[in-house]
């Protein structure tokens, strides 16, 4: 029972150099909480002072932006991939 979280190049230095991390299934919020618990340095890059995802952080479940799903409540089933996409390079905009 596992999901894969892919880490963009810019953030790998805060995630032990890993391009991807394997975590237990759950909601996007739960998975990102587990990720930042494992790699605390990632936290300030993803969350603002209020503890919400920073407005320009792009999270995808499979090929879909979570803004078009249920946000951080989006369930991530076993075997699915959560991607943190760079905010720019054109940026995944919607």
């Amino acid at each position: 029972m596992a999901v894969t979280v892919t880490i963009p190049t810019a953030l790998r230095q805060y995630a032990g150099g890993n391009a991807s991390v394997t975590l237990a299934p759950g909601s996007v919020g739960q998975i990102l909480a587990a990720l930042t618990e494992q790699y605390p340095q990632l936290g300030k890059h993803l969350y603002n002072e209020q503890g919400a995802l920073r407005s320009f952080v792009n999270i995808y479940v499979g090929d879909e932006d979570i803004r078009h799903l249920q946000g951080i409540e989006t369930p991530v089933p076993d075997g699915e991939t959560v991607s943190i996409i760079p905010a720019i390079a054109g940026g995944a905009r919607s």
Partner: protein
Amino acid sequence: MISRTLEERIDRRSTLVELVGNTPLLRLTRIDPDLPPEVAVYAKAEWYNPGGSVKDRPALWMIRDGERRGLLRPGVRIADATSGNTGIAYATLGAALGYQVTLALPANASPERLRILRSLGAELVLTDPLEGMDAAIRRIRALVQEHPERYFYPDQYNNPANPRAHEESTGPEIWVQTGGQVTHFVAALGTSGTFMGTGRFLRAQNPDVRLFAVQPDGPYHALEGVKHMATTALVPGIYDPTLADGIIEVRSEDAFAMARHLARTEGLMVGVSAAANVVAALRIARELRRGVVVTILCDGAAKYLSDRFWDDGDGRDGEGI
């Protein structure tokens, strides 16, 4: 303005290439009413360039340099890795000068961006979004290595003609437009060409001019075209870290708020990196009792209109920036 006749004021530039540079220097008069009266903040309106951004300057200088060195000639394609304004500058100038253009860029580039580049006739090679610009750079280098005779690779990160464009145009324009009164220059680092070239020119005119480089608060940010020099794997060869008197870090959220604030208080619709430059310029200006602070409005807002941040304001825009 009655001091000059229409005859004297009329702009006689008639080709697209002649329109590169000589942009207006705007005084930001309403952005911060609390600034001391003897502190002025000015910004170069770079969207007046024909390709819509400051990048027309280095693109033109690198193209002309390539021609002079015989690397770029009819039938040779201009090839580079760029998701943004430099690509639009190559495509614009390439079309006007009769050169074809090939660009590598991450596949998550905005639809406006892709449409502009394709409309200008550029050939696009799309790379993995997760890998950011690094994958695009590697792809274009491989392509050029495979067929060196087909391509001219300007390599804006390492081409001295990039900062030279600013040493020979942006810097002298700012010097003349401020009557030699500029005391502070503030600009974000991407390739670092704008900061290096303009900074070097201004410092050569007046060693007391202070130079401040703008940086995002981390490597994962939304400041289009800006590079986090402390962590990037690919530090531009043209970057000299000893030139700046200081580094000013700007959060992406503060740049978003400033973009909204500039629109409402100055009537200026600018891009995110331009807004970041203004955040930094104001931070400097607020510390002064007198001075002339100059920064760069890298581009206008047209390419960013589908960004969500324009809607994020809650009526308190301008607070905290």
